[in-house]
């Protein structure tokens, strides 16, 4: 991290319980893209509104670089007009009575008219919109073009912080790709913090340097997409980031090897039985003995073995393939382990193995137990069967 990027970073802390719960803190470096993810009503857009100055929380602090925009302790609240923030609204919020050019010229009110329109045209050119299109009103533009106008308007503000509220929700796949590209370019050239709200996890993983997972108005976890996916803090986060291979178990304490622990996999029901397999997994020392846990396995942490029978190793299981869906380069399927009804693994296969994935086929599978991540069980959690 350079000194320069630190100087322009966004730091936000919010704490309130009324009129709606909203709490958490986050930091986004300049040139970095942070994605706020979570279900509808998780508070993602509210966080964005706090950053933009459209919402004033009971307690909180917003700082971008050396500028403090909000500090409730000092009674400081800058209105959006004084914040130099670029915001791309979910439905773009373009002025229907103004042309694309005039819309982009809106934040340039401080310039004389001719210069204003010239500068606006430059910004539109930057998002690859030109010709007679820029004289049209929003109603005469396609969804993708409207979105470009919205991005250009946000950029014309020369923002110190760029915010995007579900910007991709209303455009088709082709426009979406073009906009991913544009966003990647902007990230390089702007050198300001960028915060993106999305409910699409693939989009978040594709674009973001950091994920901030929210639910019920609270920030549950943040980190790189890889980190959050490999090590969700709890079952709710795993649920929210779309990890399907979650199972129940009982933590039985240290294993035979140092640094390993014994995890009894509850494959047949709520109560442990002797036939439930015991897995030797990495012990991070966070779970007490006898505690009920949720554990997860990434969709690629397994290996299909030659032949159809397991060899009696603790990490090998006999299974049957079902629910096969071929999606071109990858194939999705479910492995139903014979160990018990609670042991069904969603897998994604690519390459030569794809040919072996046929519904009803018996196979042997080795699980990569080093990839197992164990979490405390969430009190309200219900697992998919």
């Amino acid at each position, binding site marked *: 991290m350079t000194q320069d990027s630190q100087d322009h970073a966004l730091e936000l802390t919010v704490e309130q319980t009324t009129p709606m719960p909203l709490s958490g803190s986050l930091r986004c470096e300049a040139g970095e893209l942070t994605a706020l993810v979570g279900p509808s009503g998780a508070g993602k857009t509210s966080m964005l509104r706090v950053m*933009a100055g459209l919402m004033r929380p009971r307690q909180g602090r917003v700082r971008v670089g050396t500028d403090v925009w909000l500090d409730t302790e000092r009674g400081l609240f800058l209105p959006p007009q004084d914040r130099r923030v670029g915001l791309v609204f979910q439905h773009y919020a373009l002025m*229907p009575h103004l042309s694309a050019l005039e819309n982009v010229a809106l934040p340039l009110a401080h310039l004389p008219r001719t210069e204003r329109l010239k500068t606006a045209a430059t910004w539109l050119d930057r998002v690859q919109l030109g010709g007679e299109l820029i004289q049209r009103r929003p109603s005469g533009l396609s969804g993708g073009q409207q979105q470009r106008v919205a991005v250009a308007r946000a950029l014309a*503000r020369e923002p110190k912080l760029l915010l995007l509220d579900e910007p991709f929700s209303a455009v088709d796949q082709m426009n979406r790709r073009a906009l991913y590209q544009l966003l990647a370019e902007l990230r390089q050239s702007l050198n300001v913090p960028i915060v993106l709200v999305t409910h699409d996890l693939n989009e978040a993983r594709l674009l973001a340097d950091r994920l901030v997972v929210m639910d019920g108005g609270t920030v549950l976890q943040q980190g790189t997409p890889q980190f959050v996916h490999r090590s969700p803090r709890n079952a709710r986060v795993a649920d929210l980031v779309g990890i399907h291979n979650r199972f129940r178990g009982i933590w039985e304490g240290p294993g035979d090897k140092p640094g390993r622990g014994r995890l009894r996999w509850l494959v047949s029901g709520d109560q442990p039985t002797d036939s439930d397999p015991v897995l030797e997994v990495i012990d991070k020392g966070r779970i007490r003995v006898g505690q009920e846990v949720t554990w997860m396995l990434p969709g690629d942490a397994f290996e299909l073995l030659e032949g159809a029978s397991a060899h009696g190793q603790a990490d090998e299981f006999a299974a049957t393939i079902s629910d096969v869906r071929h999606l071109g380069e990858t194939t999705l399927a479910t492995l139903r382990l014979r160990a018990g009804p609670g042991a069904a693994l969603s897998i994604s296969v690519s390459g030569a193995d794809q040919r072996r994935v046929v519904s009803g086929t018996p196979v042997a599978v080795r699980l990569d137990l080093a990839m197992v991540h164990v979490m405390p069980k969430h009190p309200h959690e219900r697992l998919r069967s």
Partner: protein
Amino acid sequence: MDWQALWLSIELAAVTLLVLLPMGLALGRWLATTTVAWRAWIEALVMLPLVLPPTVLGYYMLVSLGGSSPVGRWLAENVGLQLTFNFAGLVLASVVFNIPFIVQPIQRAFEAIPRDLGEAAAVSGLGFWQQLRRVELPLAWPGILSAMVLTFVHTLGEFGVVLMMGGNIPGETKTIAIAIYDRTQAFDLAGANRMALFLVLLSLCAVAASFFASGRLVRRR
């Protein structure tokens, strides 16, 4: 045709509109955006002239502002202003009577502006007056236009409250609606008919023109 009465009516309508427009804009916009709990009471008060018989309104204005009322006496003694049976009183009555006609359409027009447009303007750095001038007024304009036309036409045809407050003084308070009544009472049906027909055509044209104009404005988006 009583041209003097017609001209007086047009003059009254124009002055009423001139007084009401700024007030209607301020009140209409405020009602469209406010969240105060007693907003419903203000809205009810604004609607009151619409549901009261004009004679009731005229009666209360007459007794509260007339020469023998405390307000009327105070105005006469200190400002030298008399508000009954003259043009000024007529204007006051028209203003009160037309409040719902100007405020309601303007309020609806401001309410119809999506909230995120105002927020987008704020995030773009536009202050209150810039927002009003460049975003809200252009978007609310069809509603404002129809409110203006409605108020103007409605004042032209107003009868009860004018008669109560102004009486029937030619050149001072005798508007075209009262002239029509006058002619009918005098069995001059041809004269009444001419004026009535003229009023019907004028009102129809004004309302149609406002619909045409606002339709065009909306289509241009």
